[in-house]
């Protein structure tokens, strides 16, 4: 008996018992922290008051408010293009010319036609004078024969003949006058034709409608262009803006005049100030985006059309609002709310949210200041799930 008692509490047995206890402790620790028995780790945060400055984000491209395409009004071959991309032009400046082909010859023809018309008019005028003179002579003869007939020196037949001559001369005078008038009208017609050809020649010179910059030169001399095809594109560099596309679901609070930050793709870290200049009435029905034109304020020196730009619009915020982190917002049975740890178990509490920024959401109703909500969880939470506060990621 003595021997057994001694052997039972010897060093080896002590070590054995200690080893077993360490193993058992480690085993249960492992099961409780990593195994199926472990409660779900969560991180909580308090409901606090904060100022919320919500923003809406959209992407767009730098575009000109008005873009001008300059092209011919009828088909033709380009003769000369005087300006190139990037050139500054004045309003009315000749930018390009279309080959007139036979227009000059047609103008010459019109000119000589007009001169001929004038000469024809002069000839007609001379004929009028001649007819006038004949008429006067015939009337003088008639008067003379009438006197002689009354004194019975000549026969009645002679007087009738003079009468006919006078009437014929008057008719000839009327015809000559009508001819002269027609010749004058012919002058007008020939002049108008000449002017029309001049106008056509003018339209072959493509003029700049604005003071601006050439953004594209789309055709070179020798190219045949059709009516309406752009030869040059112009833009007014003082009126460039970002045509941004904003998700319709977030576009509700956007108003003209709101401030915005514009980040160009070429300088993503630098925010340029801007403001909402126009909200287009026509939205994109396919992509479900509203189109918001954001003007630069002030306009930077160098802008490139078509460059991608990220726009953040600053919406009116709320001050001193009750807020929770946005990551805490949960959805259960189509109701928004938050998860809370109540006595070590997860409970869902319906909450109505208001203004949301990227990080925080305004609590309209359902939570009081200082309450704690679960922000992060290691698993999808369910009602009644055991939870324990722990740090989920290394900070």
């Amino acid at each position, binding site marked *: 008996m003595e021997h057994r008692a001694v052997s039972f509490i010897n060093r080896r047995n002590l070590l054995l018992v200690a080893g077993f206890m360490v193993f058992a402790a480690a085993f249960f620790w492992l099961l409780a922290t990593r195994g199926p028995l472990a409660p779900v780790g969560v991180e909580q945060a308090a409901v606090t008051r904060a100022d919320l400055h919500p923003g809406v984000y959209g992407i767009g491209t730098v575009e000109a408010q008005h873009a001008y395409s300059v092209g011919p009004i009828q088909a033709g071959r380009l003769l000369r293009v005087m300006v190139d991309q990037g050139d500054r032009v004045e309003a009315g400046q000749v930018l390009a010319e279309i080959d007139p082909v036979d227009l000059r010859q047609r103008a010459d023809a019109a000119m000589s036609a007009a001169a001929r018309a004038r000469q024809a008019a002069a000839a007609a005028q001379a004929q009028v004078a001649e007819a006038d003179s004949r008429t006067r002579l015939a009337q003088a003869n008639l008067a003379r024969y009438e006197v002689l007939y009354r004194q019975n020196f000549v026969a009645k037949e002679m007087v009738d003949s003079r009468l006919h001559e006078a009437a014929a001369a008057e008719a000839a005078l009327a015809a000559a006058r009508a001819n002269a008038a027609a010749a004058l009208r012919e002058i007008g017609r020939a002049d108008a034709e000449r002017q029309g050809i001049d106008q056509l020649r003018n339209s072959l010179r493509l003029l700049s409608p604005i003071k601006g910059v050439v953004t594209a030169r789309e055709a070179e001399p020798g190219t045949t262009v059709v009516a309406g095809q752009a030869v040059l594109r112009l833009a007014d560099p003082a009126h460039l803006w970002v045509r941004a596309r904003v998700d319709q679901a977030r576009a509700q609070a956007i108003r003209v005049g709101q401030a915005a930050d514009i980040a160009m793709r070429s300088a993503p870290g630098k925010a340029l100030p801007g403001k909402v200049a126009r909200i287009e009435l026509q939205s994109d029905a396919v*992509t479900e985006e509203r189109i918001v034109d954001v003007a630069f304020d002030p306009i930077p020196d160098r802008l490139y059309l078509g460059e991608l730009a990220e726009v953040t619009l600053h919406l009116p915020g709320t001050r001193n609002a009750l807020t929770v*982190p946005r*990551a805490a917002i949960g959805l259960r049975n189509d109701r928004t709310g938050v998860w809370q740890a109540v006595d070590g178990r997860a409970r869902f509490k319906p909450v109505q949210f208001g203004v949301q920024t990227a990080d925080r959401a305004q609590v309209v109703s359902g939570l009081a200041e200082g309450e704690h909500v679960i922000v992060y969880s290691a698993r999808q939470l369910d009602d009644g799930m055991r939870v324990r506060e722990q740090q989920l990621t290394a900070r």
Partner: protein
Amino acid sequence: MINLARRDIAHHLKSYLLTGLGLGLLIGVTLTMAGVYRGMVDDAKVLLRAVDADVWVVQQDTLGPFAEPSSVPDDLYRALLGLPGVAQAGNVAYLTMQVSHAGQSQRVMVAGFEPGKPGGPAFLVAGRPIARAHYEAVADAKTGLRVGDVVRIRRNDYTVVGLTRRMVSSNGDPMLFIPLKDAQEAQFLKDNDAIVEDRQRLAANPAINRPGQPGVLDAVQAIQASSHKVNAVLLRLQPGVDARAVADTIARWQRFTAYTRDDMEEILVAKLIATAAKQIGLFLVILAVVSAAIVAFIIYTMTLGKIKEIAVLKLIGTRNRTIAAMIVQEALGLGVIGFFVGKFAATLWAPAFPKYVLLETGDAGRAFVLTLVVCALASVLAIRAALRIDPAEAIGG
């Protein structure tokens, strides 16, 4: 009555414990293999659980979007929302690709979803949800990314704003959630060289680039560069609505294929990972059989190694029942030590695996029972051998 087993174990304590440890590691490997199998099946289902959609609408006659490619118009959801019983509809796009961060690229499944609609991450472990309509991402923690990291997908940089956990594709690739429009672009947008070459090809095509019709080429190019396709539309139904009926209606009248959650699970588990799962499953069976055999042999040889002692016991008149009890107790003891060491080891090293290892409590229970049964059976063999020992061997030899 003294306990022979305890005395014997105390006598050979070190070798007994080491044998138990060895057995334990073997059982641990078997448990891990079971965990790998379970993890594989769970990987296939985890996305379904996370997006929590009742009906998946995909391209007609495909097993999309995971088992086969599927492409549906992105305005289809409007028609689906009009169906009775549909509460929510969300477009999703999935693409498996390499993304690079800090010079290292890794394989992820990029998931495009619309915030507030089905298809997004169900919970976060850090950061915040996606707030902007573009260029933000929520990553699975397994990607190794941290909040604030910037990853490049195709031509755009995405900022990781949040982290989630256990969001993997059926292949076990961690997921990266980005806004749907970005995912559509990443999926269908060609690289810049291809775009330029395509433009030139189109410009060289006289049917498209006709003289006298300068607008046609631009229009064709614009069509080629834009995409309004998604991989699937996820529907959540109002409570009490039969998903099967809604899916049948969609298949019949909308001419798209619609799967209920059960169908989808069937596709993912039975079709997508079927071969791989069978491979692992068969290996698991073989491993279990081999482990059982090794356990049996160890106990048998351990008993045979004590022939002389048993002969002495018999010589001094120990009853057969006492000897049998000793062998059974030692065998079961080995089994218990082995199981706990194995479970300990498996739990310890499971998180280190690159793919998810799911150690189910049910599996552990079955393994425990199986271990004890195998130990008991093996000890029966050993007892038969022990009882045949001639007491005379104690004196001879």
